[in-house]
């Protein structure tokens, strides 16, 4: 068994596996999103909070919070693959990190975008320099930096390794950024975000939030694997197995 550890680290053997997994993840995405959104729209209370209740518009939470969670999680995933790539020197890990980055950037953007539309009715403003908004924006910049650096370098090997190093350096910043929420003087940086506590959320809301999160997670798998397959094909275009695939008609 020990020899099988790296079996799927070879692009040629991972390519068909990814092809078989993609439909599974798409189905899971569809089911989770349908359940989560149905539950979120029809099985949850009409109001959120006590004295100054948020009305129907709070339902944006079912997109906003999962997107924000995924945006941070995908950065960690990306850094893990980048680090594995640097340590074991496996090509596929770099490709994986590469494939995760756009999805992560999209979720970061989605979190900011939905946050703006949630902020307008509840805070009276689309944007405020709340620590969490600012850190999410920085996260977005870091994804963009990763993608930009990778696409600026023509030599694939150097691009992979340089972007991986940048991602790891960025991860060092993440605890720092989160920590900046608790700044030395709380009077000077008022946070509009309430402190979140999962145990105090109403059960139905939590359920649909988690269902959508799981759906977004499966969506990330699906899109990442699809992107990975095209990256593999582009990079391995000169190899015989890709040529054979082309002759056979593209289906593996």
């Amino acid at each position, binding site marked *: 068994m020990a020899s099988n550890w790296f079996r799927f680290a070879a692009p040629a053997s991972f390519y068909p596996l990814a092809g078989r997994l993609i439909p599974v993840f798409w189905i899971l995405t569809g089911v989770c999103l349908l359940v989560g959104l149905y539950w979120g729209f029809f099985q949850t209370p009409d109001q959120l909070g006590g004295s100054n209740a948020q009305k129907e518009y709070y339902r944006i939470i079912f997109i906003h919070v999962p997107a924000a969670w995924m945006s941070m999680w995908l950065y960690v995933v990306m850094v893990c693959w980048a680090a594995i790539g640097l340590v074991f020197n496996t090509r596929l890990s770099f490709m994986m990190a590469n494939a995760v980055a756009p999805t992560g950037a999209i979720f970061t953007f989605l979190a900011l975008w939905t946050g703006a539309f949630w902020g307008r009715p509840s805070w009276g403003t689309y944007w405020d320099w709340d620590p969490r908004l600012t850190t999410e924006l920085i996260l977005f910049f870091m994804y963009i*930096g990763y993608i930009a650096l990778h696409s600026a370098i023509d030599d694939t090997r*150097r691009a992979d390794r*340089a972007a991986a*190093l940048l991602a790891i350096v960025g991860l060092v910043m993440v605890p720092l950024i989160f920590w900046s929420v608790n700044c*030395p003087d709380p009077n000077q940086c008022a946070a509009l975000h309430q402190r979140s506590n999962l145990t105090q959320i109403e059960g139905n809301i939590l359920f649909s939030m988690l269902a959508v999160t799981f759906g977004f997670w499966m969506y990330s798998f699906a899109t990442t694997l699809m992107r990975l397959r095209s990256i593999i094909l582009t990079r391995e275009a000169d190899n015989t197995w890709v040529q054979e695939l082309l002759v056979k008609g593209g289906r593996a």
Partner: protein
Amino acid sequence: MLRVFWCVLLRDLTLALRRRTDVLTTLFFFIIVVSLFPLGVGTERQILQILGPGVVWVAALLASMLALERLFAADYEDGTLEQMVLTAQPLSLLVLAKITAHWLLTGLPLVLIAPLVGMQYHLSDDAILIMMVALLLGTPVLSLIGAIGAALTLGLRGGGILLSLLILPLYIPVLVYGAGAVTASGIDMADTRPYLALLGAFLVAALTFAPLASSAALKISIE
């Protein structure tokens, strides 16, 4: 090992001082950017006092970033950098020496010119003092973090723009706490201590990890 450090440091300083304009351009860029803001936003005393700390820090970020491109570029072009990578000495030490030279030439002048800029913005003496201390702690962090970006973008077309995209987000904590310290000094001098302590912590962390990361980045870029 210390001898190697001094050797590289003195070499870089000598090279830079033979071409003084490079050093002076950065300094004048800083002064010009800082002087432009009052012309743009109005010269009322109160507005300037509020804007001052932030403007000075943003200008410092931009100035140190502009100079970063030159950190490794000349050595990369004439092959010196490859020789440095090949020596038996630890690369991170050589990189640290180069960063130190870079800071002495671009960061330190900004610290020294700060009182002048403070006067332009009608800052109080206390605020100017805190600004100098904050810049003294913060500008080395900028050079250290920037070196990683400079090493990663070595020899790329459009490297300068790319460098700013990579490095500026990483500069944000220094900007926040650096400008925060000066603003806090307007309320109570004792309030500035946590900000300065945090800047010091950034400096120690950057001093520990940035040379390692930059030397790893150099090896990636050169191989």
